[in-house]
């Protein structure tokens, strides 16, 4: 009798979960498709050049935390200083690097220490000094040297120092498109209720980079990186674009996001106790305004504005995914009161449950589902035909979602040239459920196991570097 009840509960859960996931993904894929199409129509009519000569352009601080980035920091700062926008400054925060980041930047940009007063609204590790350049050509640059406190702490220090209306938090080693700030600022100017805006992050492996600028887009030659191209397209162009349309976006990638500075300060800045600080900040800002019953918007720009290097080995990718899983759990746990709470509107009713069930719980359901199904197959309570039929359906459904995302990319930005590239991406979509997805699930489960063991670190990451430079140091990785 008990076995029967458990079996029935399992079946009901299976119905709800399967129906929920299929209907959610179908909704997301169609909403994002029409949303991208609408964006493209509007974008063709927009003249961004008007903004470049306007004194109405809102002030923006580009905040880039750096930890042991000595090898590339000079070039990265140069790239950040050359963006096309007339009212911005660059704040680089040296988060207690152990390498030669500080002397290299001081020398390259002719920096001198200046007296400072920091608007210490958010507590951070102590600041050792603030530097400005003697050379007027670099007047936009502010360099903060502080004790190590982690990425979130470094970002908070930058936000404290900034006096701009908007802050853009980026990863120092990302490649930002020249017109990124013009595009990102538009939602803030079009709608005063906009509190945050995210940019689409893409994989830059195998792309041609010159002087910190992306000059040619190529499909990665590395198989893992190619799977990530597909994965990032799905995450940004399909899922997040749709959530932004429904005003339910919970995550703006730490690699590139723009925020209303005053609201960030009011919300208390980035949380230094989680590895999912990017998502946590958005959820906290939203919660704050929902509690005050104020209207707001969290936006996403579908243009590929930021390019990042994806991990190319199982070891590094595993660490990244492990951290993402821990971050997701920490944020969901921290903000559990939001779950199905109508006070938090779209976030409480739709976004949070989606993240809980289909992002966080999915690896567990998959893992447990496999064990459960195989045990039933073993005891003969499910037929092989039934099992195979269901597996094939899930496979083709996932292939459909991936192909739809590729189609959305093709009709909008078509960054990958040639039929061959498209066929390669389709092949990645065909193979992904067998090769990439199981590993992702495993890393995610391992992340939760690490969480139980109390591991809270970012993990040591290895990067190939766009100029084929290899370094093996702990460094920040974007969460997407």
């Amino acid at each position, binding site marked *: 009798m008990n076995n029967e009840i458990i079996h029935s509960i399992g079946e009901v859960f299976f119905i709800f979960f399967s129906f929920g996931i299929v209907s959610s993904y179908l909704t997301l894929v169609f909403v994002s498709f029409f949303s991208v199409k609408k964006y493209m129509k509007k974008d063709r009519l927009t003249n961004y050049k008007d903004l470049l000569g306007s004194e*109405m352009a809102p002030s923006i601080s580009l905040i880039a935390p750096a930890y042991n980035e000595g090898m590339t920091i000079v070039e990265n700062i140069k790239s950040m200083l050359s963006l096309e926008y007339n009212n911005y400054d660059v704040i680089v925060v040296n988060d207690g690097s152990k390498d030669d980041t500080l002397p290299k930047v001081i020398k390259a940009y002719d920096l001198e220490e200046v007296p400072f007063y920091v608007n210490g609204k958010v507590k951070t590790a102590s600041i050792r000094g603030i530097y400005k350049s003697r050379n007027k050509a670099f007047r936009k640059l502010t360099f903060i040297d502080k004790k190590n406190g982690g990425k979130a702490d470094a970002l908070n220090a930058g936000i404290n120092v900034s006096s701009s209306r908007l802050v853009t938090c980026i990863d120092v080693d990302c490649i930002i498109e020249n017109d990124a700030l013009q595009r990102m600022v538009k939602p803030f100017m079009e709608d005063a209720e906009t509190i945050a805006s995210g940019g689409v992050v893409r994989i830059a492996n195998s792309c041609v980079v010159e002087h910190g600028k992306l000059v040619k887009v190529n499909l990665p030659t590395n198989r893992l990186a190619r799977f990530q191209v597909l994965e990032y397209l799905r995450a940004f162009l399909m899922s997040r674009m749709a959530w932004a349309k429904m005003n339910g976006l919970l995550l703006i990638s730490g690699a590139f996001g723009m925020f209303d500075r005053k609201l960030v300060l009011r919300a208390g800045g980035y949380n230094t106790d989680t590895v999912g600080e990017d998502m946590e900040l958005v959820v906290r800002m939203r919660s704050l305004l929902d509690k005050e019953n104020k209207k707001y918007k969290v936006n996403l720009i579908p243009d590929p504005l930021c390019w990042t290097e994806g991990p190319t080995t199982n070891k590094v990718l595993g660490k990244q995914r492990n951290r993402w899983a821990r971050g997701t759990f920490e944020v969901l746990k921290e903000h559990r009161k939001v779950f199905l709470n109508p006070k938090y509107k779209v976030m409480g009713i739709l976004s949070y449950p989606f993240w809980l069930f289909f992002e966080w719980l999915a690896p567990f359901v998959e893992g447990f589902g496999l064990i459960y199904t195989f045990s039933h197959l073993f005891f003969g309570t499910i037929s092989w035909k039934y099992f195979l039929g269901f597996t094939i359906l899930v496979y083709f459904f996932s292939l459909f979602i991936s192909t739809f995302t590729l189609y959305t990319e093709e009709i909008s930005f078509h960054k990958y040239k040639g039929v061959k590239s498209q066929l390669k991406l389709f092949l990645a979509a065909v193979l992904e459920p067998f090769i990439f997805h199981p590993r992702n699930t495993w890393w995610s489960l391992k992340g939760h196991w690490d969480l139980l063991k109390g591991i809270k670190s970012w993990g040591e990451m290895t990067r190939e570097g766009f100029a084929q430079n290899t370094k093996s140091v702990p460094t920040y990785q974007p969460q997407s």
Partner: protein
Amino acid sequence: MMASIYDMIKDEDAMIVAFALFSILFCLLSLALLSLIIISKIKRNKNESVKNEFWPKSQKALALITIAPMDSMEYKKSIFFLKKMMEQSRKVVQWVLDEIVKQQANLSGESKTNLLQAYKVLKLKEYSLKKLKSRRWNVVASGIQELERMEQHDCEQRIRKFLHAKNKDLRKTARLALASLAEKPLDFLEHVREEVNEWEQMSIKYRLRGKRKDNLPDFSGYYLHSEPSVVRFSISMSVYFNCFEHIPQLIDLLATGAEDLQVTVIEALSKLEAFQAIEAIETLASETDHQPIVCAALKFLGNVGCSEGHHVIERFIHDEDVEVRMEAVNAAIRLDLDFSDENNDLRRMYAHHQNHLIS
């Protein structure tokens, strides 16, 4: 209903058939999408190769159009060549049109006149006007933009009717075009019943560069407009065109406006260096607890450069709010006042501002 779904799931054979049908459906849809992707890619590549073949010749023709006199043989030959090219397809027509629109933005004098003439001779104006009849809002909007950029002032009335279009973006495009083309560029403000957002305000302002003040309306007339964004825009335009004569009306607005509007007014008065407003702003700053008003007032006092406001600055220099303190220090430095005494925090703030670390 739940029971019937449960019963259906229990029926294994029915489920297997359902799984198979949906699998085939998703498989076919995936293949169809892949085909669409490949077709789109092939089309794109074909277009690219056509463009690559045609582009250098058309660039040469356009260059000749801009430099050669209109009655010269080169000019006529170039026009003839482009006409012939444009017969190939509508895509080519659009390429030529886009290129002419792009080039004329960077030209002046005779070269510009030549291009504007080519726009008409090549019947591209008719092409743009034809777009205005389309049912698709984005096509109409692109037609309006082309007419605007090619400075077709005679199309003002045709564009004006889109001020009341159903689509919001189309209405906005029409407003921007009128700001460029109309004899009285801002008379549409009277009838605006929706938000003119910051982006649109910026775009309108951009189009009004170099316009004569006497063609523009009396912006103070819109200070009591029912749409708050129009009020804010009018205030910013008063500042942009240095309308010092509007200062009394702006001071009046301080007494009637909402808090956000009061901040805008104080900022405008600050930019106009309206020393007449000192008393009103001092009073407002003393009576309010709205932080942005206090900050704007302190900025005003520092900017106007009148030391009469020193007691207000002195009062806020020890305020609890760090941003208010920062503004007070900034104002004090501008007025050459030093309240730092023994207070380390304030001394650091003084040093910070004096070094222009953060503007």
